[in-house]
C-alpha cells in the first residue's frame, strides 16, 4: 500500500458501507449495515494520508491512535490494529457503529474538507468485529489487590470502568436496576443499529475476567451508596447511572393512550421484545397506523425507524428547527429517510387530541421559523402566528431528551449536583463531593454519547485505582 502516492490516495473514492436494501430491512429488526469485507477495509485504509499532525485523533474524545490503527488495517494486520484501538477504547464494536463520527474523528480528518473523510468508524467496526469473530483472548488478570469496588449502572460508563478496574486487580461488582445489562445499549439503541449480541459479548468478556454482575439491584432503594461503602464493605463506588428520566412536552393531551415517551416505546420493543409474538409486554398496535415522533436526535430516529419496522405508515418526524440543526448522526437521518420516514421540520406540537375513550387521534402542529441565535449558537425557533397544521395520528412518541433520574440522588443527599440535577464530578477523575464516590457518563454530563460515557468511566477507573492504592499506603 505504501507505494501509493499522495495524489493517488486523494483521487480514490471512499469505500461505501454495504447495507441491506431499505425495502427489505424496514420489515425486520436485523442489522442495517453489513460491514466491510477485509478487501474493503484495506482499500478504505489506503486512502489515509498519514498526516504529520493527524487531526482525526484530536477529534476523538478518547484519543484513539487512528493513524496507527488505520495504517495496520492497510497492511492487513487487523489483530494488531485491534490492539491499538483497545488501548483507548474498550468497546470499538459499539463505537464504530454509534459514534457521531462526523462531529468527532471523521469531522476532524483533513479529508473532511473535501467531503471524503476516511471512514474511521466503519474501519473501527471492521477491526473490532474481525477480532471478536476470531475469539479474542481474555487478558491475564493483574495481581489481586484485595480492594472491592461497586459500579452502579451497566451502561457504557459502568462497563468501561469495571473493565479497567478488574484489569488493575480489584474486585468489581456491577449493580444494575433492570433485569438486563447494558444500559441504553440494551434498552434504547435498537437491534438493527447495534445487535444485542455485541453488547452481550462485551459483558461476557467482563464476566470471564471476574467481574460480578447483580441485576434487579436498584441502588438507593435496596442498598444506598452509604450501605455499599459501610455495610457491604466496598472501598469505592462508581456511579454510572445515566440520565434516564424522560422529558415530556407539557402540552394538552399528553396523557392520551398512544402517547409514549421514546424511552417507554423503545423499552417495550427492545428490552421487553414487544415486537416478537412471544413477548408478554403489550404495545399499542402500530401496524398501518399513523405515527409521529417529536424531536430529531438519535433517540427520535431510533423510535421512528422502530415504528416503521412495526408496520407504522406514515411515520413522521416533527422537528421544531430546520434540517441543518438535526442533532442525530447523519447516517441515521439518511437511513430513516431511505426507510420511508417523513421529515417535517419547523413545526412544534401544541396540542394532542383524542376520542371519548382517551385514545390519541390527532396532533396540532404550529409552524415555526428560525429567529435570533441562541446562547448555543443555534437559531431559536419561534412560532409563526396563526399557522397550524392538523395531522391525524394514532401513536405519538416524545423524544425530546432525558434528565437524571432522581431515585438514587434522593437517597444520596450529600452528593453535590448542578441546577440541572446532574452530579458534580471532576472531569479528569470523576471524583464527587462524597469521599470514595466517583461518577461519570450521562449522570454527570446529561444526555451525551457512548464514547464520552466510556471515556469518563475509564478516567474514573484510573482515579479509583490511584485512590485505592494511596489509601492502602496511608493505612499501612
Amino acid at each position, binding site marked *: 500500500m505504501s507505494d501509493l502516492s499522495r495524489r493517488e490516495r486523494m483521487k480514490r473514492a471512499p469505500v461505501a458501507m454495504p447495507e441491506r436494501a431499505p425495502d427489505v430491512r424496514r420489515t425486520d429488526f436485523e442489522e442495517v449495515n453489513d460491514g466491510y469485507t477485509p478487501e474493503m477495509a484495506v482499500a478504505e485504509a489506503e486512502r489515509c494520508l498519514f498526516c504529520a499532525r493527524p487531526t482525526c485523533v484530536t477529534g476523538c474524545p478518547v484519543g484513539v491512535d487512528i493513524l496507527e490503527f488505520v495504517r495496520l488495517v492497510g497492511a492487513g494486520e487487523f489483530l494488531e490494529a485491534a490492539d491499538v484501538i483497545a488501548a483507548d477504547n474498550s468497546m470499538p464494536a459499539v463505537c464504530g457503529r454509534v459514534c457521531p463520527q462526523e462531529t468527532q474523528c471523521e469531522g476532524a480528518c483533513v479529508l473532511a474538507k473535501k467531503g471524503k473523510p476516511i471512514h474511521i468508524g466503519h474501519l473501527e467496526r471492521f477491526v473490532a468485529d474481525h477480532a471478536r469473530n476470531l475469539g479474542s483472548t481474555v487478558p491475564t488478570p493483574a495481581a489481586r489487590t484485595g480492594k472491592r469496588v461497586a459500579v452502579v449502572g451497566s451502561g457504557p460508563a459502568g462497563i468501561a470502568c469495571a473493565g479497567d478496574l478488574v484489569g488493575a486487580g480489584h474486585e468489581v461488582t456491577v449493580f444494575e436496576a433492570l433485569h438486563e445489562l447494558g444500559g441504553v445499549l440494551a434498552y434504547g439503541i435498537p437491534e438493527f443499529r447495534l445487535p444485542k449480541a455485541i453488547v452481550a459479548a462485551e459483558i461476557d468478556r467482563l464476566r470471564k475476567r471476574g467481574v460480578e454482575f447483580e441485576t434487579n439491584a436498584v441502588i438507593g432503594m435496596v442498598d444506598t451508596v452509604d450501605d455499599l461503602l459501610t455495610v457491604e464493605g466496598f472501598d469505592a463506588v462508581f456511579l454510572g447511572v445515566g440520565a434516564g428520566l424522560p422529558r415530556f412536552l407539557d402540552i394538552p393531551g399528553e396523557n392520551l393512550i398512544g402517547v409514549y415517551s421514546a424511552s417507554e416505546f423503545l423499552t417495550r420493543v427492545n428490552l421487553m421484545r414487544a415486537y416478537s409474538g412471544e413477548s408478554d409486554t403489550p404495545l399499542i398496535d402500530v401496524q398501518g397506523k399513523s405515527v409521529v415522533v417529536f424531536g430529531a436526535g438519535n433517540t427520535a430516529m431510533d423510535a421512528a425507524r422502530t415504528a416503521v419496522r412495526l408496520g407504522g405508515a406514515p411515520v413522521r418526524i416533527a422537528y421544531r428547527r430546520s434540517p441543518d440543526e438535526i442533532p442525530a448522526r447523519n447516517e441515521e437521518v439518511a437511513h430513516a429517510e431511505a426507510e420511508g420516514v417523513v421529515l417535517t421540520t419547523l413545526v412544534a406540537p401544541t396540542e394532542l387530541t383524542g376520542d371519548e375513550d382517551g385514545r390519541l387521534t390527532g396532533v396540532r402542529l404550529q409552524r415555526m421559523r428560525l429567529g435570533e441565535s441562541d446562547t448555543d449558537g443555534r437559531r431559536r425557533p419561534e412560532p409563526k402566528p396563526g399557522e397550524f397544521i392538523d395531522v391525524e395520528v394514532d401513536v405519538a412518541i416524545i423524544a425530546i431528551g432525558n434528565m437524571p433520574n*432522581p431515585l438514587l440522588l434522593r437517597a444520596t443527599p450529600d452528593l453535590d449536583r448542578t441546577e440541572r440535577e446532574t452530579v458534580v464530578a471532576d472531569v479528569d477523575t470523576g471524583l464527587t463531593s462524597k469521599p470514595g464516590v466517583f461518577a461519570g457518563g450521562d449522570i454527570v454530563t446529561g444526555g451525551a454519547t457512548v464514547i464520552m460515557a466510556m471515556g469518563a468511566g475509564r478516567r474514573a477507573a484510573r482515579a479509583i485505582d490511584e485512590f485505592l492504592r494511596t489509601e492502602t499506603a496511608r493505612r499501612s
Partner: protein
Amino acid sequence: MSTILEARVLVPDVKLFRVHAPKIARKHRAGQFVIVRVSPDGERIPLTIAAADPEAGSITLVVQAVGKTTTLLNALETGDEILDLAGPLGTPSEVARFGMVVVVGGGVGTAVTYPSAVALSQAGNTVIAVIGARSRTHLLFETELAAVCDEVHPCTDDGSFGRHGFVTDALADLVATRKVDRVLAAGPIAMMAAVAETTRPYDVPTVASLNPIMVDGTGMCGGCRVSVGGVNRFACLDGPDFDAHLVDFHLLEQRNRAYAGWEAARRDELGPCAAVPVVVDGAAS
C-alpha cells in the same frame, strides 16, 4: 432468582407468597412495591409488599390472578423460583401520629393497606379498617387486620358477611359520626374515586395507593404517569400514594384500559378458565 418459601391460596384467584428476599425485607417500608417477572418473555409487573420479615429474610406478596402474568405467577408453588424481583420501589406511605385513621381496602387492595395499618398502629394512631369483597369467600386479610386495628368493618356486595353494601357506605357513616383524621384507600380505581368523593365534603385528608400500568418501576419510562392536581407525576417514583382529592381517576381508569384487547387475548391463550375477568370488588359504582 428468588425462592418461594410459602405459597397458599387465600380466597379464589388470590394467592399469598412468602418469598426469600433478605435485602428487600430489611429495607421495606409500608406502601412500597416490587417489580416481578416470571418468565424470560414475561412482562414486568408491580406488586405491593404486603408484609416483610427482616429476621426471616422474606417478603409477602398477595396476588390476584387477573391476566397472563398474574395467572402464571399464581401457578407457582412453595419451592419454585421467581425469575426477577426488584425493589423495594416507590415512596413509602406517610406514617405519623394523625389520630384516627381509616384504611379502606377493596378486593386485593385490602392486602395493600395491611402494612400501612401496621405502621400507623405502631405510630400510635387509632386505626379502623373498612374492607370489602364480593362475598364472604372473597374477603381477604380480615384476621390479620383485626390483630393490628382497633376496629374492622367488613362489607360484602351480597351481604353474605358483615355489612351488606360497599366500603364507601361504611366509610360515609364513619366520617359522618366520628372525628376521622385521615383515610388511606387501596383497591379498584372506581372504589378509590368513590372514597375520595365520600371524604371530600368533610375535608378529611385522603390518600389513595394508585395502580397505573408500569414497565420499569424506576422512573425510566413515564408510562406510570398520573395527573395529580393537574400536574403529571410518576407513580413509581413519587407514589404510588397520592392525595386522592387531587387525582384524576377518570384518566387513570382510561390509561389502565390501554391494552385491554391485547390482555384479554393473552389471558385466553392460557385456557378458558385460567382467570376470571377483573372484578370491581366493593366498588361504589
